[in-house]
């Protein structure tokens, strides 16, 4: 510091007041010489833990003194270190000396209330002693019991203890109450007007006379017992179950494991079915309960479908143009005319299951076709529901009949159901098309017919199993020429089948496409551009499209003007 001051030309700072030298007393420093002029190395403050202890102060005094604890009845004198001159009222740890209240009784009490067929008094005494010594640690009590007395199961010991404790408590309470009643009654005769005294008397009397079982629940202090008696039967049963579980053989365990796995599988299956809306089919047995609600006639169902479809479909007004694609909107749900949302969802699931595209290129033909298919599917679903309901009713009535004593099986189902035999030809739905009729007539075939329509009936000759695979191949093969119609960017459908196909084809989205379309849409109309392209040059002469071409009546329909992109697609190829 001083050096810096010199360099800078500043006057040197005054010496700090509290320097080492001035702190030390002079004679001391002279005596010891310069080497010891340093301050003493003994620190003035010692830190122990978080405490700072001043070493200049004299240490606190501790003494090795005798003490006795209030928790010891015999007043044993032990020694320990304590601060000197500090008076302790009691040994600090005496307050931790907490024990259970012993359950004690006199011989008279035992004879009056506690005698038992299975227990002698000496055994009961022993049990109470052990319960106190081991403080209700039942495994230990049982262990020591078996060493000293004839063995009993631990539940018996528990039952005896809790019964005795509860009985003693109840009887003592009622006894006390009876004594009190007497005293109060005696007082009441002296001054009969005191209403409070009368009330107390009445309360005490009722307590004394009441059935032990109906007395208020009282905790026996310390033991945790109440006058609720230990449930011996339940505990024994529990023990038996436990033993059974423990003693299972390997085979039994394996069997249980297998059953569990099976249950798991069934549950996952059910969950899947429910997701796809087919749980009604799977759980048809449960529909019996629905029989109470009135089941609408099949005709009503079809009207409902028609209504629902017409509410959303645009009505053509002369002079006002409308988009064909508006017809593709889903049928209305809810409200008076609509159908349930769940039904629509199931319809969509059904159609998706048969690879019917949710959106098509909105030509008139395609829209007509789509409309038909949807109507058919809805009708089929409604009819199916009704069939299940009817079957449930039938089953319920059969059951009722059997209960009433008649195992008469000759009763006609229709009479049982209270319905007239259905008219032989069911009224045709408004839709025109052979598939719809077929669907209405036989729900079982509906799927096949629907799939037939979905694939454009070109694969009518093939089996349904083959349909899916062949349709996908068709789509794949058709992918290249119709790439223009598929915009990979804004597809709204999220079906896995679509995704799978999307991976296989990576044709660039050549044209910005306003109409939402998908691969499947491309598939269902693929025949059309292909047909046109065919005479030009494509190598897309796959066997499928070839064989499909002559069979497809739809392909001959002219493309509507709304779908302008279609004309451009072959050009690109």
């Amino acid at each position, binding site marked *: 510091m001083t050096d810096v001051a010199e360099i800078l030309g500043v006057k040197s700072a005054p010496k700090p007041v509290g320097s080492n030298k001035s702190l030390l007393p002079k004679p001391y420093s002279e005596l010891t010489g310069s080497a010891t002029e340093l301050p003493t190395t003994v620190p003035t403050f010692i830190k122990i833990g978080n405490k700072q202890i001043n070493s200049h102060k004299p240490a606190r005094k501790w003494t090795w003194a005798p003490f006795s*604890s209030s928790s*010891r009845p*015999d007043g044993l004198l032990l020694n320990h270190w304590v601060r000197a001159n500090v008076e302790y009222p009691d040994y600090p740890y005496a307050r931790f*000396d907490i024990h259970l209240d012993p359950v004690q009784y006199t011989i008279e009490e035992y004879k009056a209330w506690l005698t038992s067929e299975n227990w002698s008094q000496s055994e009961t005494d022993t049990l109470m002693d052990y319960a106190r010594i081991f403080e209700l640690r039942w*495994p230990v009590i049982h262990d020591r019991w078996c060493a000293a007395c004839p063995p009993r199961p631990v539940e018996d010991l528990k039952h005896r203890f809790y019964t005795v404790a509860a009985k003693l408590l109840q009887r003592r309470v009622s006894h006390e109450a009876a004594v009190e009643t007497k005293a109060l009654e005696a007082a009441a005769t002296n001054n009969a007007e005191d209403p409070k005294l009368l009330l107390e008397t009445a309360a005490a009397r009722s307590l004394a006379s009441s059935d032990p079982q109906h007395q208020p629940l009282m905790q026996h202090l310390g033991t945790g017992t109440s006058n609720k008696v230990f449930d011996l039967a339940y505990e024994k049963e529990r023990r038996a179950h436990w033993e059974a579980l423990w003693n299972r053989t390997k085979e039994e365990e394996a069997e249980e494991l297998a059953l569990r796995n099976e249950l798991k599988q069934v549950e996952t299956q059910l969950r899947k079915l429910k997701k796809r809306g087919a749980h009604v089919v799977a759980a048809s047995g449960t529909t019996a309960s629905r029989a109470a609600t009135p089941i609408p006639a099949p005709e009503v169902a079809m009207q409902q479908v028609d209504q629902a479809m017409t509410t959303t479909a645009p009505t053509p007004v002369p002079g006002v143009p409308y988009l064909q694609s508006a017809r593709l909107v889903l049928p209305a749900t809810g409200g008076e005319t609509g159908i349930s949302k769940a039904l629509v969802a199931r319809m969509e699931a059904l159609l998706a299951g048969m690879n019917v595209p949710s959106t098509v290129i909105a030509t008139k033909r395609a829209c007509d076709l789509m409309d038909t298919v949807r109507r058919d599917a809805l009708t089929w679903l409604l009819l199916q529901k009704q069939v299940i309901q009817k079957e449930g009713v039938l089953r319920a009535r059969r059951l009722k009949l059997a209960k009433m004593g008649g195992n008469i099986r000759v009763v006609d189902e229709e009479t049982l159901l209270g319905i007239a035999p259905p008219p032989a030809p069911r009224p045709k739905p408004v839709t025109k098309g052979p598939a719809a009729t077929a669907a209405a007539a036989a729900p079982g075939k509906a799927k096949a017919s629907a799939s037939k329509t979905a694939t454009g009936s070109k694969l009518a000759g093939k089996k349904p199993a083959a349909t899916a695979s062949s349709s996908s191949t068709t789509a794949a093969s058709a992918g290249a020429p119709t790439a223009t119609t598929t915009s990979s960017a804004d597809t709204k459908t999220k079906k896995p089948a679509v995704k799978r196909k999307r991976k296989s084809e990576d044709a660039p989205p050549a044209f910005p496409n306003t109409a939402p379309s998908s691969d499947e849409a491309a598939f269902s109309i693929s025949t059309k551009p292909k047909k046109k392209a065919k005479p030009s040059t494509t190598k897309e002469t796959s066997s499928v499209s070839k064989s499909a071409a002559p069979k497809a009546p739809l392909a001959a329909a002219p493309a509507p003007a709304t779908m302008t992109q279609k004309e451009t697609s072959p050009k690109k190829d």
Partner: protein
Amino acid sequence: MAAFAGGDDIGAVVAEIGHYSTKIGWAGDDAPRSYFPSNVAVLRQGDKSRRIQGVCHDFYTHPIQRKTFDDGNWETCNPIDPTSGLMYDPDSTQGADGFDLLRDFLHHGYSTALQQAKIEEHPFLMIERSYNTPAIRQQTLECLMEEMNVPAAFIAKDAVLMCYGCGRTTATVIDIGHSGTTVTPVFEGFAETKGIRRSPTGVHAMDRLILERLDALYKTKQPAAHDGIRPLYQVRPVQQYVDPEGQSLPRPQRRPSIHFAARMELARECREFGAGAAVNITDTAFHAPSKSFTLPDGTVLDVPSVDRFAAADLMLGYSPATVELREMHLEDCRSNLKKIIEKSQYDDNDDDEEEKSEKDDKFSEEAAVGLSKRRSKQPATQKQKQLSSRLFSNRQLNRACTKHLQTLLDDQLTASPLASMVCDAAYRCDREQQAALLGNVVLGGGGSCLGPTEQAVPDYLRDQIESLIHAHTPGWRVRLLTPSLSERAILSWLGGSILGSLGNFHEMWISKQEYEEWGSAIVNRKCP
């Protein structure tokens, strides 16, 4: 240790007399101040009583003083009976050595390591086996109260204290001791007697096995030697044996028991320091290198790894050879026990009726299960008490122990490997406790200090126990609790040290006044 919450040091002394070593120290300390072998050399009186006249504590290292006693008459003595593992003397014709030695050991410990503390001034916590019989506990308390004159005493079970040493109150405790291995389930601070399993295969058996192997190895080196390895006293130069006049004396002949003890000491050294018995954790026993061990006479033995692993395997292994060895030890122990029981029954017929009635009063069934409500009619005078204690009949004690020895023989002795013993012990308890008991397994005792690493034995045991219980209850976890190698051998003493320094333990001491009021049976009531 002293920093335990709730601790209050009252200068209590904790002592444990084991079959191998005796540990005496202050409660609250980290380790016992005094640690010496229990196997001592004694010189008995020449008359029929054969009472112990002199005790030599470190006869392995120091030559027995020739000035005062005749060297050749010394013999070994152990306060613990190796068959039962208890402070018990089956030979009822003599006074009980155990209690004579207890007195001597305490004096030795107090005078050498406890700053000459006075026995009469400090509460005394005695550690006993978990399968100790009520009569022996009563006798111990009587000995402490009347002969040692302690102000207050408590007798605690070693298994419970081992639990406390590991910070648990519920656990299955494995104690690999010198005279045998014991597994005890402990539930909330109480040992469950029905779950106790005991195997006579302990460190002693291990040492005997090692001794055999060493003898065999020695013979390959020195074909002329027929009595196996020679202990230190036999190879000392002869000049050391010189009488006060300076004349050299012939090499003294020692009793066989002393000779055997000295040879066993060599085996122990080999196990602990030289060639180290170890658990085979690598599955390559034959590739592990051999270790060399130098005998007192300078011979260097190469102990092959197979021999080293065999010692540990004796306790833990499943191989047919070890199983056979264990069975052999079990049979030995069984036959010894049977002899003891027969003998005490014979004594029973021998006694006169008067003595019997007296005995029934003292070691009655009621007293044994801690239910005696008898108060002594009038406090006996000090002289009378001393007399009765000095002249107590060993027969009485033996008779009172017969029932418990029978239980030990019929029910508790086993030759199964350690892992099976643990499972068996837990399965004998209530179903509701089993998960907790197997979840906490405490390992202690000198035999658990095997190498090669600190965690070798616990890991090995945990794997074995888990593989056993997972056959039945796949979800259960096993946790093996054990302190470091240096503390494993004194784990029960550590637990005693913790217990004896707890503030709220001090209400549990049996005071002199209580003893005088209730008699020795109070020990079964207050220390259950």
